[in-house]
């Protein structure tokens, strides 16, 4: 197993506001880590620090792969949905190492790669649509294609299941499971119920970080780590969540 990312005693945040304190995390090839935790707990700060968008306040962050070898799917609400850009151009933007000066060499391989990804996700037909004309599920597929353009060794996803219907959510996680055979995945979700079925390990982030070696954690563990979570479960998506405890409680929809 190859070590991709090494985080040691890292603190990070915005201005004087420390969001993450003294955290440690190693990401290896083949990992599928579900990052859970309450809103404002530092999940997004963690991946923005890994991506180099936020400078750490203290501690060490070592990337053993190049930055462009990390595929990134940001939160959908960070995207300007009325921006005049087509689906095809959004996907092509994932291959940005060739963007500078690229107007003059047409880059056939890049276009073919974008087309094959769109085809794989079943959305080749909408390649010429504007980004704002898509449904939530279609949009997430487009951003997943963009994140995969560089054949990344690590895929980082920030809440990919927001604004999508239940069907697509299940489909997405199955797709991620398949992708996990080729790359490590770091998946942020507020939805501990659903993801724990798909991920291999769980990292609970709430100012501190606790990396659990399995995908099943008990409610006691959550509480003892000061990691209060809203338990959300959806229709027919499997959720072997939080074992023990009376199951009915977890089926109550709090959505």
């Amino acid at each position: 197993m190859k070590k991709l990312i090494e985080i040691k005693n890292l603190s990070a945040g915005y201005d004087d506001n420390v969001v993450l304190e003294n955290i440690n995390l190693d990401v290896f090839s083949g990992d599928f880590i579900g990052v859970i935790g309450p809103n404002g707990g530092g999940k997004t700060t963690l991946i923005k620090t890994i991506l180099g968008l936020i400078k750490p306040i203290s501690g060490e962050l070592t990337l053993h792969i190049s930055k462009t070898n990390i595929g990134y799917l940001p939160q959908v609400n960070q995207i300007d949905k009325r921006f005049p850009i087509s689906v095809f151009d959004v996907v092509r933007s994932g291959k940005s190492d060739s963007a500078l000066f690229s107007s003059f060499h047409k880059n056939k391989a890049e276009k073919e790669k974008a087309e094959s990804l769109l085809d794989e996700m079943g959305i080749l037909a909408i390649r010429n649509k504007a980004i704002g004309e898509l449904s939530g599920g279609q949009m997430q597929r487009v951003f997943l294609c963009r994140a995969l353009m560089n054949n990344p060794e690590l895929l980082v996803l920030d809440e990919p299941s927001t604004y999508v219907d239940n069907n697509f959510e299940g489909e997405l996680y199955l797709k991620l499971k398949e992708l996990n055979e080729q790359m490590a995945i770091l998946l942020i979700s507020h939805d501990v119920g659903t993801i724990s079925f798909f991920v291999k390990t769980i990292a609970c982030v709430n100012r501190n970080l606790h990396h659990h070696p399995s995908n099943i954690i008990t409610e006691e563990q959550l509480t003892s780590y000061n990691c209060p979570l809203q338990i959300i479960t959806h229709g027919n998506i499997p959720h072997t969540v939080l074992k023990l405890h009376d199951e009915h409680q977890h089926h109550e929809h709090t959505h």
Partner: protein
Amino acid sequence: MNTNTMNILIELFSYDFFVNAFLASLLAAISCGIVGTYIVSRRIVFISGGITHASFGGIGMGYYLGINPLFGAAIFAILSGMGIQLFSSKGKVREDSSIAIWWSLGMAIGIIFVYLTPGYAPNLMSYLFGSILTVSSGELWLMLALAIIIILFFTFFYRTILYISFDEDFAKTSDLPVNLFNYLLMILISLTIVLNIRVVGIILILSLLTIPQATANVLTREFDRMMVYSVGFAFLAAFIGLLISYFADIPSGATIIFTQVIIFGLVKLIKTLNV
């Protein structure tokens, strides 16, 4: 078009001042159409408004020091563009407040200098409200140079500009020179504003950077097409506005903007009825 109107047009083009005004509207359409598409897509219209008004400080300073007011305006425009970014990124001032500070500071400096300048400030109104019929050939050469630079820059770096504008964070993660481009584009915005002040004036220049783009956006949701359509609509409005300005003897800035809004309304109406 009947022969009579044709003859009038031919006669108009025999005047140097009219040919200059015609070329000015074409060059203004090119620079404002392209740069405005970037401004509108990236939602930095308010920043551009701040830069525009801050440049008045440079115009006042130009009068006071006896140098070309447009030269002073260019310096103020670029400094305020940088200043707005610096205030909000390093100084922790909210961006809209930072814009308002530079916007009003520039206007205040301009007013102070104009009043300190002994005697009458010639052409002051033409900087505020535009006067396309008095554009000089020296200004035309500058506008031509700017139009060429903008066309080359946006052609060479089309994808980089598009990707950075659409998703700045993602562009950073793929190692694009985001900060460098932000500054280069800010300088291009400043120069575009300053060199087109003579066409529609400080008060009205935001229109050239937004209305043709809004019109183009009715018809397309592709960045490259939006640039081309914007140039077309901007030119059409500038030329018709120029004619109205000449025949009705109304300041060109006002007639051009009025025409832009009419065209926008027509395009929107036709599009709505078709769908």
